[in-house]
């Protein structure tokens, strides 16, 4: 174990783990904003379940990140006491919820990616990473089954639901590319066998998403343009609003517990 882990610089591993934890943290907060507002009770509960699953994954990733950093920060400290530029999540997960279909489309694009990623991470040379991936993969598989089903049902639904799903896909497509971009951190992680190169996830993702869009009678946008920056801390203004809401209590009453 130590041999492989030592091959990655601590700071690199820390940054990479932040990306994993921040993705699930920010998406969880976005999904939790539906609580009490979803179109039907069943979807409301399902979305809350998903948000809670993602928070559980966040705790594992960010606690490990804190452990790797070695400065005594745990998941709560990292979640509540960092500012926007220290967050490493993909821009996709901070995009506003839009309507229910828009939220489910964002969820589907993410779920497909997360499933491919987690399945690769099960073979990580770092057993701590493999362990978290193993735990998270099952619920992630269910998230995908659910979001995929909803995207197909609404895409291949009424004229209005179809139009809304196509609009959601078109609007979110610019944020897909960032999931598959490799940078220095990714390459160091891949060289050590800790995780896959993001670009290597694309084919499998394309297969999952392509098949579902086909069934949903939706047209895959013909563009490779990618909005980027989230992975290195350059975010859209939306993240600031998310953090303002999420971090308010710890900022106003530092150290408060209940």
């Amino acid at each position, binding site marked *: 174990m130590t041999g492989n882990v030592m091959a990655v610089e601590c700071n690199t591993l820390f940054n990479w783990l932040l990306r994993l934890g921040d993705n699930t943290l920010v998406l969880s907060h976005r999904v939790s904003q539906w609580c009490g507002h979803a179109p039907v*009770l069943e979807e409301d*509960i399902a979305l809350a*379940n998903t948000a809670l699953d993602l928070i559980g994954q966040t705790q594992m990733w960010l606690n490990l990140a804190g452990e790797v950093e070695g400065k005594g920060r745990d998941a709560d400290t990292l979640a509540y006491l960092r500012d926007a530029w220290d967050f490493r999540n993909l821009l996709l997960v901070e995009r506003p919820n839009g309507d229910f279909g828009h939220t489910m489309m964002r969820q589907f694009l993410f779920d497909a990616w997360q499933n491919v990623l987690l399945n690769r991470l099960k073979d990580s040379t770092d057993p701590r990473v493999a362990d978290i991936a193993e735990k998270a993969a099952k619920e992630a598989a269910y998230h995908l089954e659910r979001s995929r089903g909803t995207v197909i049902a609404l895409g291949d639904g009424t004229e209005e639901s179809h139009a809304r799903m196509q609009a959601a896909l078109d609007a979110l497509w610019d944020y897909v590319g960032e999931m598959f971009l490799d940078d220095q951190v990714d390459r160091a992680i891949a060289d050590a066998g800790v995780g896959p190169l993001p670009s290597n996830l694309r084919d499998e993702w394309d297969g999952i998403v392509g098949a579902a869009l086909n069934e949903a009678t939706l047209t895959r946008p013909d563009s490779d343009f990618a909005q980027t920056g989230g992975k290195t801390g350059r975010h859209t203004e939306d993240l600031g609003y998310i953090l303002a809401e999420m971090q308010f209590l710890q900022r106003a009453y530092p150290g408060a517990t209940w």
Partner: protein
Amino acid sequence: MSSEWPLWEVFIRGQHGLSHRHVGSLHAPDAECALRNARDVYTRRNEGVSIWVVEAAHITASSPSDKGPLFEPSESKVYRHPSFYDIPDDAGAM
């Protein structure tokens, strides 16, 4: 076509149960979605190992007003209970 989703009845087989038990109902547009909804609404606390859903419209139920003719006649027929037999000790637990 109605814009309301149909009602589904949900049956769950629990960790230690041998048979599925009715746990409640929910709305869903189709059977697959009803299964997923049942998973999210009724098995959040690790209640189940198996789920059945059936569209409520497919259940034929007895009418409460038929209670008399259907059930009262059996009230006076205690001999239908196997409670008048002496069970030999060596038969063990029945």
